[in-house]
Structures are given as C-alpha cells and as structure tokens.
C-alpha cells in the first residue's frame, strides 16, 4: 500500500511537501479511505527510503491540517472527516500567484494584462479537457 508513494529526487520542492501532497491525493481519490489505518511514520520512512524526521514532519503537518489523526500508541489513520479539498492545492496556488505577480512586475506588465493572461490560460485548459 505505502509503496505506491513515489518520491522524486529532482522535484525542487521539499520532500515532506511531496509526501504530504501524495497522501492528500490518495485520500482525495479515495484510495485511502476515511478511518483507514495508514503506515506508521517509521514504516513509511523505510518504504520510501526517506528520513524518519521528514515523514514525521509530513505527518505533523497533515495532522495540523486535519487530514490524518495520530493516536498515541495506536498509530495513524485517515481522519474520519478529512478537510481536504480547499487545502489540497491552496497553498501551492497562492505561491504560484505570488510568483506570477512578481514576474509580471519584472516584465513591466500592468495588472489587467496579467489577469487577462491568467484568464486565457484557464480557458486553454478547459478547451484541452473537453
């Protein structure tokens, strides 16, 4: 079960974020269902060949976000009511928007130009998915 998680070495983002994202994805699509037991921190660290401390951080953040619940002595499991959807990509979106704003300023774009570009990109995406 936990060997499904695949960590990329070349992904620039911190490993704990990658782990968090993949766990949230599994919960979002239902592969890890509510109330399901998930691997302990050590088990996942061994399976992924990643530091225990990194997995521990990922779990702590996930618990803080309400995605998982850890019971002392009993291990961890998916929260009965994981508050996922808004947070799944919320932070990433915020970072990307900040980045786009910075780059836009560098390029000397006006705010309206920036927003219209964003609109066009979103529309392109809708067209591709149809």
């Amino acid at each position, binding site marked *: 079960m936990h060997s499904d998680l695949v960590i990329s070495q070349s992904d620039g983002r911190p490993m704990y974020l990658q782990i968090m994202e993949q766990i949230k994805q599994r919960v979002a699509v239902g592969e890890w269902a509510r109330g399901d037991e998930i691997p302990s921190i050590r088990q996942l660290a*061994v399976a992924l060949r990643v*530091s225990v401390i990194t997995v521990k951080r990922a779990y702590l953040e996930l618990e803080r976000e309400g995605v998982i619940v850890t019971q002392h002595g009993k291990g961890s499991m998916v929260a009965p009511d994981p508050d996922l959807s808004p947070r799944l990509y919320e932070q990433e979106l915020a970072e990307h928007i900040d980045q786009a704003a910075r780059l836009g300023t560098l390029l000397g774009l006006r705010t309206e130009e920036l927003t219209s570009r964003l609109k066009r990109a979103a529309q392109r995406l809708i067209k591709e998915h149809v």
Partner: protein
Amino acid sequence: MNSISVRFEGVSKHYPHFTLDNIGFELPTGSILGFIGPNGAGKSTTIRILMGLIHQDQGAVHVLGRSMPAEQAAAKMDIGFVSEDMRLYAAATVGWHMEFIQSIYPRWDQSYAASLLQRFDLKPQQRIRGLSHGQRVKAALLLALARRPRLLVLDEPTTGLDPVARQEVLGELMAVLADEERTILFSSHNTLDVEQISDQIVFIDRGRIIDADDKESFLDRWRRLRLVLSQDAVLPRFSGIVDVAGSGLLPVLTTNCFEPRMISECQEMGATVQAVDTMTLEEIFVANVQSRRGGKLV
C-alpha cells in the same frame, strides 16, 4: 535503555599536520546521523575515535552508555562497523567471513544473511580477492548488517557503488531503522545520500564542527534570494547573509537563517524579490564551507 546512543564532549586529537578540535554532538537512539565534510576534514578520525580505534587526547566519548576507549570491547559487541579503508582477508571466502562473524555474535540472523547474499548478488564460495570494489563493500556491509547490531557506524558506505547498489544499501540502512532501538551514524561526502535518509546532520571542515542541526531545519534555514535592485536601491543587509553573488543590480543573497519577513524587508528597501530558491544539501555544504574558509562567517 539509553536515549542517547553516541555522545562526544570536547573531543580533541592532535596530529602534526592536523588537529581535531572540540568535537561535541549527541546522537539520539533510533535516528540516523550523517557526517558531511570535505576530504581530510576529520570525519574518519572522529569515527575511529568513536570505535576506540584511536584514543582521543582530550574529551569524553560515550557509545551505547559505555566510555571509549576504556570499555571498547564491551561496546563493540553491539556496534557494526564498516569503513572505506577496511579490508577483509583476501585469501578467505565470503562464507568463511560469515561463519567467523557468526561464531562471535549471538544475534547473527542466518535467514537475513541469506537474503542479503541474494540481494547483494554475492556467493559464499567467492574469495574476497576476486571481488570487485563494490562487491567488497557489500560483503563488509552484509557482515555488519546480519548481526543486527544496535549501532551501525559506517565510514563512506556508498562511495564507489553504482547507483543501483547505492539504493539497495540505503534501503537496507533504512530497514535497520524500522526498529526504533537501533541507530546509525555514517559519514559521506555524497550529499545526496545524507540528504535522503539522515535525521541529524553534522558538518565538519578542517577538524571542526561548523554546523549541526536536524535535516529539515537545515533545509528550511538556507535560501537563495534572487533580487532585482532598482538603480538607487541599497543592498539589503541582515544577519545571516552568508554570501553575496551575482552582479550589482542582480544580486543573489545566500542566507542560513531564512525567515519570510526577509522578503518584505527586501521589498521595503527597494529590492524586488524575483525568486526564493531552496538549496540542496550539496549547495548548502559548499556555501557553508566556502564562506567559512573565506572568513565571512565565524
């Protein structure tokens, strides 16, 4: 059960051309500590002192609750050691070494040893003399792992291994950690390995510890800030700037104590923050060493 597996306090060792100076650190049970440093920094010397192979001139060393080198025989019963400069007996076979080790250590796990033989692609009848470098390293690791020691001490365990063998070894090391009573200390100048599996990281350069922290804190603290300065803007100064590179209008600041407020501070001083890059452990390592050698940091 000890919560600290290895403790160094004020350890020093003097050689004519090299001094190991005031080494101190703690390794909690159940974690992995990675020693990073350039060649000749003192990693091997520190590890040898840990094993009692070299006696320190000053300072206290405690391993698994035992004082080194006084209680080294007892301590080594629970320590598995592999070092890059260690050789097995060339004329003997892999199988002979396995039997030899098995006769000494009661916790030898024969089924685990057999599975390691298979995974490392070694045969008991092979003579050490006929093995390639990578195979010798794996043989030595097998001998250390199959005993299931409480502490594994490894000096450059993946140096000279092909990428597939490296991942196998890292996998075996992590498997050791499945038991939270077992601990690993290893040194490497392969920062990828250290970055991947270490919990604690210690930087050594020229006989001194120049930085020590847990891995996540390291990766959190270090950032490269790519700035764009307007014509009349002044280069932002805060504490913790380790390096300033790039050109006059496009400076790149390297900091070792990043906080989000730095971004807004930069912007207040007229500098646009184009990007905030995380740094790999390798980049942190090089920046750390270069800045200290350049005298920019004490």
